[in-house]
């Protein structure tokens, strides 16, 4: 699915990713944990193609294509999805217009016909139920005036609609109460499939009680310093990130 080799990236003069190696197979869920500033959100952004970072070394292969050669919109159309830690508010553009534009862009890229407006609307409304979003939110500006939890559920809605091959959840649990967390986790679990993989970026182990990872990686100073199974997350919860740093040192 995704193979990252020796990935280094800078923002300005600061090297944030200092050589990441990571292989993600189809159907796998990988959790990436680490302290603030360890580079875990940057990894998500660099994979999604955000401006402001320069990749200085390394390769990323996504489904047989060189991901780093693609524009951000083409990465999305190839099946990469980034659920934002801070979803952006777009007053004046309705959620429905936004979703339809995204779905049409995906369909056209695949060479499919764009979904017709009526059936698309129906599907969006159905998914609202799964994501626990009031369908009236489809008519509101994108994320405009949404609470933190509503924004995260709106990310989930977009993910369910676009059906990505690889979804990167960037601190989706931050700012969520336990009920919202359960909704988001249930949505993700619903989407788990043999040909769909997830990277779950999180600071806390709590989310991993609900989305069970196959692998857990600890990021520190721009490198993966420890990898393991889900028990690593529990160990981190107990001993703190300092323990990993000491062990590595």
């Amino acid at each position, binding site marked *: 699915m995704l193979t990252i080799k020796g990935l280094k990236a800078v923002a300005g003069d600061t090297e944030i990713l200092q050589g990441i190696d990571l292989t993600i197979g189809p159907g796998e869920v990988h959790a990436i944990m680490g302290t603030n500033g360890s580079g875990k959100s940057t990894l998500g952004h660099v994979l999604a193609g955000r401006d*402001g970072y320069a990749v200085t070394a390394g390769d990323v292969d996504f489904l047989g294509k060189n991901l780093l050669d693609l524009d951000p919109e083409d990465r999305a159309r190839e099946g990469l999805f980034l659920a934002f830690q801070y979803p*952006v508010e777009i007053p004046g553009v309705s959620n429905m217009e936004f979703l339809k534009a995204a779905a049409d*862009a995906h369909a056209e890229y695949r060479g499919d016909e764009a979904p017709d407006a009526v059936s698309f609307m129906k599907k969006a409304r159905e998914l609202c139920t799964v994501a626990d979003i009031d369908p009236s939110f489809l008519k509101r500006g994108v994320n405009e005036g949404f609470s933190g939890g509503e924004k995260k559920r709106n990310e989930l809605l977009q993910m369910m609609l676009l059906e990505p091959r690889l979804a990167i959840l960037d601190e989706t649990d931050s700012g969520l109460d336990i009920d919202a967390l359960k909704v988001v986790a249930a949505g993700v679990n619903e989407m788990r499939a043999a040909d769909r993989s997830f990277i779950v970026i999180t600071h806390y182990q709590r989310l991993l009680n609900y989305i069970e990872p196959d692998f857990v990686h600890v990021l520190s100073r721009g490198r993966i310093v420890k990898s393991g199974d889900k028990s690593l997350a529990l160990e981190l919860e107990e001993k703190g990130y300092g323990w990993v740093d000491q062990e590595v040192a």
Partner: protein
Amino acid sequence: MADFIETAASKDSGPPPKYLAAWRAAGIESWRRRSLPTRKTEAWKYTNLRPLEKAAYAARPEADGIDEESLRPLIDIPGLGANRLVFVNGTYSDTLSDYDCADGMTVVRFADANGKDAETIAAHIGRLIDGERHLFAALNDGWTEDGVFVRIEDHAIVTTPLHVVWLTTNASHPFGVAQRLLLLAGKDCEASLIEHFVSTEDAQQVFTNGITELHVSANANLKHCRLHLEQPSAAHIGGVHVSLDRDSRLNSFHLGFGGVLKRIDAVVHHRGEGAHCEMNGIYLPRDSQQIDYHTTIEHAVPRCTTSETFRGIIADRGKAVFNGRIHIHPDAQKTDARLSNRNLLTSPDAEVDTKPELEIYADDVQCAHGATVAQLEDDSLFYFMSRGISREEAKVMLSFGFINELVDRVPVPALAEYLRPRLVARFSDPGLSRHIL
């Protein structure tokens, strides 16, 4: 520019209605005593008047040779169902006009008015205008040969909007047009007025000088839209002057594409307690067009409210000026006034001069004002692209979103529907706007 004063003063404007003859002559005299503003005149500091120099706008346009039927697509607004008056190059068009006033609204052209209407026009015309501040108003007085007088009776609920179109076409020589409208809204009435400036697509050398005066009586509710959709070579200097009596409400919307010279002054006088003014506006200059909106809200009495929002998208080498002044006089306690101006620059060469001004001489008031100038945010663009939407389509959706909130507030729904695709077309290919229309 000194030549322009005399050239304009000597324009052949046709005979005035008799009851306005003395007033018109006084206008010309007043205009002749003026000197045009320079870059040092504060209220005109950023307005480039040089395009007026280039053409002798003294002549009248040719009266015939225009196929008026062919102009219909430019003026029809589907679903509006309005009473419509149309002026082509300043001359009333019987062919294109269609009005049958009922429900307590009377519409009379200045040229046709007599008896009581003539007396009322003569008694009210120019009364709201500070001639020192609005110097082109004197020239408008001096050019007036026709105009629209609208009278709405007390308690009348007029559901049919009044749509007044001023259309210009190409002529073989430069010409000038005076647009004039006077509206008296009676007590407790409700009505909607749309002033629509438009032109054929071909380049033209026309200078329109416009003045609209709206007198809104106690507890009346007036919706007013003023649209400037002319071809960029058409010059316009115009003023809208409003007086609001006790508990009356004005809901107004301004829209302007840019041009060689386009300057609109909107002045609202709160004269009776409890009056409310909502004023929203959009301006969209591109290429090397300019547009200036100067608004003044005079709070002279207590307990009035103002909510004013203008937004502009300035593209290419376009230039916009927004000067929004709210003046709260010493007696205007309990005023609530809010002014917001936001600008989006879509090119490194685009320019805006924005100056919100609050002058407060009362102590028990709530006021807020703010102005921003920005480009499309990288965060927003990336959010769209991360969902597979192309950068180009994202730009169009975000730009339109920026003004769409104000289109939603256009007080006449059919007009909002009419404007949406035209606004989108200002900054988009059809393929890029399919998700917002």
